[in-house]
């Protein structure tokens, strides 16, 4: 025991892995770029499928680490070398940390919606992303369009930046479908008289209780689902939007006016994740996420010995799955550092 573990990225995965590894008796150092722990969870007001507050999960995560591990905020690794199974990492603060194992939990960033030019994000006044909407929700302010009216019709566009080879992202970001449903419900709770439409390619309600949430959206809140991918949005004179989709189930093009358009932005590897890939010479897969040593049996293992992965730096994940993954990584690191015999298995 008494071995050192460096965890890079103080989001959900970093916090939960820190808690487990410190409980197991390792000296854990958690490095976070921002001045606050929590990562994306800081910005998600309510979580699917239960609508519980993001803050509750955050305080749960804090309970595991507060006062138990060393947290370095406002810092990020700038150099890394490996010597005799030891990773020597230099931080931007100048501090040098030596660790027996490094866990990368640098996570994801949301897709830059302005890259889907035809949707007009950053150009049309009333096109926002799911992250923007979440901020609108958590600000507690009245929901208004840029023209100052209460939106009467809101469209949620699924798969923005996901499953789209044209923007280089072939994968499904997993959480956007259910997030759209969750946000549509929240919107209807705030604005019961507004119409909410979800435009989807396939609805991927794969998680437990997700389908129930979808049904609730239809039944209780009257959210309407139109299968079709947004082709283009244009602005009307009153700053509302005219959107064009194919209603693929009727087989006809469809246009409708939207007061507010919400783009469900997908996951991309965060800048930090990309940087860590360079710094630690980690392989990335075709999706640009950090490559797992084996898709089934070594999901927390990177291509470099002693460097492990957890959370969304390796694939899009839900919060539930991120927490599970962080604990799995902790177990894997323990096994590695203790040289358990099961480490002898081959993939």
């Amino acid at each position, binding site marked *: 025991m008494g071995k050192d573990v460096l965890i890079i990225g103080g989001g959900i995965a970093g916090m939960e892995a820190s808690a487990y590894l410190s409980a197991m008796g390792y000296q854990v150092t958690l490095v976070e770029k921002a001045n606050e722990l929590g990562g994306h969870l800081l910005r998600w007001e309510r979580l699917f499928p239960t609508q519980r507050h993001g803050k509750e999960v955050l305080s749960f995560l804090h309970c595991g680490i507060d006062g138990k591990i060393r947290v370095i905020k406002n810092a990020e690794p700038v150099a890394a070398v490996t010597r005799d199974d030891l990773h020597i990492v230099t931080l931007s603060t100048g501090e040098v940390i030596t660790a027996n194992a490094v866990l990368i939990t640098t996570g994801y960033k949301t897709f830059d919606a302005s890259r889907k*030019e*035809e949707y007009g994000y950053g150009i*049309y006044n009333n096109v926002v992303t799911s992250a923007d909407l979440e901020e609108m929700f958590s600000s507690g302010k009245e929901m208004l369009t840029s023209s100052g009216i209460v939106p009467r019709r809101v469209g949620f566009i699924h798969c923005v930046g996901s499953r789209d080879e044209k923007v280089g992202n072939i994968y499904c970001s997993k959480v956007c479908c259910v997030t759209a449903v969750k946000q549509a419900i929240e919107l209807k709770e705030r604005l019961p008289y507004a119409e909410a439409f979800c435009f989807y390619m396939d609805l991927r309600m794969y998680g437990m209780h997700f389908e129930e949430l979808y049904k609730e959206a239809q039944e209780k809140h009257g959210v309407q689902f139109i299968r079709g991918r947004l082709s283009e949005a244009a602005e009307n004179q009153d700053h509302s939007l005219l959107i064009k989709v194919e209603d693929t189930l009727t087989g006809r093009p469809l246009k409708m006016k939207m007061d507010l358009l919400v783009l469900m932005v997908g996951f991309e590897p965060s800048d930090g994740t990309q940087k860590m890939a360079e710094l630690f010479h980690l392989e990335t897969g075709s999706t640009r996420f950090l490559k797992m040593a084996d898709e089934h049996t070594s999901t927390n293992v990177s291509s470099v010995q002693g460097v492990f992965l957890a959370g969304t730096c390796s694939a899009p994940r839900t919060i539930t799955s991120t927490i599970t993954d962080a604990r799995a990584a902790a177990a894997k690191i323990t096994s590695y550092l203790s040289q358990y015999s099961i480490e002898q298995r081959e993939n």
Partner: protein
Amino acid sequence: MKEEGKKKLWQEYQKEIADDRYFYVRSCVRQSFFPGAEQAFLKIMREELGKDVFEHACHTTCTGIAYHADVVPFDTTMTVVARQFSLMTESGYQNLVPSCITSFGVYTEILETWKHFPEVEAKVREFLFKATGRTFEIPKNLAHASDVIYKFRDSIASRAKYKLVNQQTGEPLRVVEHIGCHYAKMFPHKGIGGAEFPHVLIGMVESWGGEVIDYPERRHCCGFGFRQYLVQANRGYSVACSKKKFESMEPYMPDLIVTNCPGCPMFLDRWQYVIAEMENHTYGADKQGIPVLTFEEMAAMVLGYDPWEIGLQVHQIPVEPLMIKMGIPFDPGKKYLGKNSKDMGRPEIPDYLNYSGMKI
């Protein structure tokens, strides 16, 4: 609309446009649609801007119409285009400037194909050599005529006699810009401003004092679509496309439509008349139709060229109201006089266009 957002986007789609020494290739159909347009371009380039623009007497069609109408195969098109390139090489030019958007699209497509499949280029070189004994060099710069005008838009503005401003009200004219589909929809990075928010015409209009309106069906095709128009029975589909655009732009009360493609101004102009005849609805604030100009005609008007010299009399929708708005003097009596003041006949005035109060 957030202007800064658009500007940010435009910066990502800038292209290199040669400064001088252009090899100009004409459009097949423009000279019969709007005969003054290409002439105006040459005049502006040579006389106003002092540029070297060369036309080779032997150049031909790029086959674009036949290619898009599925009449000739791509191999034929490439070989014909290779011949154009060889004429350019022979004449000692490297910068290709097509007049036609479809030609521009065809050239772009061929150059991109050759870039990714050099064996195709080799094959075409062989075809051309076997057929004509010619060889060629790939153009160093390919820009559409509207790109070139865009590049010199500020020089033109500094020479302008008139502005795209309503003289009576002092308000900028409200301009609808229509970009030919083959300009950037296939290769967004080959167009100025990209495919979704092209800047090429907007740049000209704003530089010359006008205001561009962004209406919902801005991206929609004019309806030419080659096959759609060429078969008479399909024309109802073609006109429906234009109609969709007119209906979408009508609430914005545009003063004029400007285009950079040979087909679009033709259809946007003529279909207004057809719709007026068929459905008894004339567009435009005064029910006089919305004038449609090519970018060269617009430049020529701004520069104060004689409207009848640049062929404005062959427009179906009269341009006179626009000239009155801009304060451009014109002699109505000379409208239908051709070369050597010979009367060239006049069109039957469409029943449904409202000409009352118009000084013709």
